[in-house]
């Protein structure tokens, strides 16, 4: 006998209400934790507000933004950030892709290497920076290893021309494992039949990679590039840790935008000015993300033509 169930109005709409509660909660959290602070920061960026010693908030228009352009500290921080991003982003993507391809070959010890390369990502960045700071010391282990192959000691943190490279090396080392895993997953999701068909048609490995694999990896590449770009422009902990103490790195050689924002906000209490700097970084990242999306779409269009 088939039992007939009567559906009450509540049961009819319970999935809708459940979904609505979840979505409203998420939007509420997004609003409180993301939207409100961003809008407040935007507002404060047009004011002279100081965290301490500011009896009233005065609207200053674009004064904070124009001051940024004449602030040597901001200019240096921007330059260092662009150098770090300009080197670490392509390096992380390229190395990550190479490692991902290596993992894709399903070599016997692939899982072990995946774990090893993924380890830096799960370690706290501050702890990593401390370890690297120790390794970068004049008589640290890096210079010792270099001396074994006849290379003179390098002032990793004490040479102002090398300091930024010390940060770049750490940054690439931290994230290359994660990008390799993402690329590996992307490669695994490409149906093998396309590559097999191309091989049957006489394409070599490079042709298969260029014409089949890489175009199909575009969505993954876009996602990974957005991630590494955001991380690179938001770098902070290594710079903070490496400049701490009487034997820290030369500040001007490694100072980055977030570090400058931190100093302006938490040390000098110039909230309005720091907010303007933060807004600049925000707009820079949005512009880069849109640019990347445009370039990816063009590349996808070219490949699919």
């Amino acid at each position, binding site marked *: 006998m088939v039992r007939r169930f009567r559906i009450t109005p509540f049961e009819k709409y319970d999935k809708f209400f459940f979904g609505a509660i979840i979505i409203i909660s998420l939007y509420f959290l997004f609003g409180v934790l993301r939207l409100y602070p961003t809008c407040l920061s935007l507002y404060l960026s047009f004011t002279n507000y100081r*965290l*301490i010693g500011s009896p009233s908030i005065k609207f200053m228009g674009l004064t904070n933004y124009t001051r940024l352009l004449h602030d040597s*500290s901001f200019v240096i921080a921007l330059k260092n950030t662009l150098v770090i991003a300009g080197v670490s982003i392509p390096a992380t993507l390229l190395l990550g892709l190479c490692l991902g391809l290596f993992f894709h070959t399903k070599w016997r010890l692939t899982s072990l290497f995946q774990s090893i390369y993924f380890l830096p990502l799960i370690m706290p960045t501050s702890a990593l920076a401390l370890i690297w700071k120790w390794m970068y010391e*004049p008589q640290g282990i890096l210079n010792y290893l270099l001396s074994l192959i006849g290379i003179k000691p390098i002032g990793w943190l004490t*040479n102002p021309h090398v300091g930024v490279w010390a940060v770049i090396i750490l940054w690439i080392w931290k994230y290359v494992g994660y990008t390799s895993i993402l690329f590996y997953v992307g490669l695994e999701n490409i149906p093998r039949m396309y590559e097999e068909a191309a091989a049957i048609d006489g394409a070599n490995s490079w042709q298969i990679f260029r014409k089949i694999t890489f175009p199909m990896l575009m969505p993954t590449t876009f996602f990974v590039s957005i991630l590494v770009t955001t991380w690179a422009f938001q770098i902070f902990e290594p710079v903070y840790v490496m400049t701490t103490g009487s*034997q*820290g790195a030369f500040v001007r050689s490694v100072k980055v935008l977030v570090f400058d924002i931190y100093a302006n906000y938490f040390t*000098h*209490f110039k909230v309005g000015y720091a907010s303007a700097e933060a807004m600049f970084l925000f707009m820079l990242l949005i512009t880069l993300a849109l640019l990347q999306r445009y370039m990816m779409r063009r590349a996808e269009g070219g490949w699919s033509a």
Partner: protein
Amino acid sequence: MRRFISFIVVLMVFGLFVGAGGQTITVWIGYPELESIYRAAADDFEATHPGVSVQISAFSLRDSETKISMALAAGTGPDVFNLSVTSLVNQFREMGALSPAPEKVIAWVNENTEDWVRKYIAQELSYYGVPGHKGNRRLFWNKDMFAEAGLPGPPRTWTELLADAVLLAKYDESGRLIRSGLSLRLSGGGGGIAHKWYDWLVLAGAYVLDRVGDKYRAGYNNQAGFDAMRLYLDALHRYHVDSPDIKHDAEAFALGQTAMFVRESWVIGYMATHAPEVNYGVAYLPRHVDSAEHLGVDVLCVSAFSPNQDLAWEYVLQYVQPKYQRMMLREVGWIPCNIAADYSDIIAERPQLGVFLTSPPWKDHKVYVYPGIAPESEIDARLAERLEQAFLQEKLAYDDAALWQWLEEAAAETNQILAEYGMYAGE
């Protein structure tokens, strides 16, 4: 589900009652090495104040003042805290975040501290803090290295300083410096580089800021600033007695990688722990134009948001008593501001401390203390970054015009910062 929620509510209500009852004084300090001293004072305080518990939290100095600033700006934070950047005291006072010292605390300051400390607390900080310890600096010198180089004792002038450093520095076969003759502060974040440079600037006869009424202007774009810069540049580029590629500071001194360096008295406690075998002495900084020193005072403050302000002030008074100040001097090495206590037995045990507890014997000895003005940290941090870069420019060691230009540009930035705060006195 209903039972689970009821259980959680009961637990929360229970927790409220468990937390209630008894008073708690929270203390945040920026000197982890002093935590045991604060704890000792807290234990005795709790014993004499039943129902009161004192919680001590120690952070690094840089982080501590950031946390305190954020907490006070939000109207929360600890009951008691220490500040080494005294401009913060005035800024917190202006925003109503500090509790004014009661009469008995003011009386203690007036009766138990030396003249310049008393004046500073009264005139610069309006008694909104109690001096805990002071940060005066002296020259640490390795006696064995000096004897090896045939030098009779520590240098008394800048000329002797550089000459001695040349004899004390050591190099390997390739000419790379492996032991600095004089370890200078060349790198690191914050305003530390600037503070150490001020030690030499005051000996050259000037200070970072010139006061004109209630306003200021940069005070180092002159011969004194030139001489102080030339000292560093000559040490690095003409005489090669120091280098960024070698270890610095107390660690280098403990490892025997430098013959001389300038630091506060905490190094004595550090050396006793890490390198008790090093045979070293402490001397006054060598004179140049003047005999002078640039001093800092660490102050203890009570928050205006504290629900237990009277108790908090009592704890502060407890901490500055001779018992704990002697403990601080003996175990850590920071110099107490309480001059009423007897430290002779500690000095007998560690004679190096005696040099910190006395001023140089010259009649014209001057003391400079940073005015408690809001732009202090920004001026120091910006100047520190400029100094850091300038020290590495060999050209400045040989090109007087370039060095003068550097001084003018740095001073212009200092004046611009003062102007932003409405404190610039003009040319």
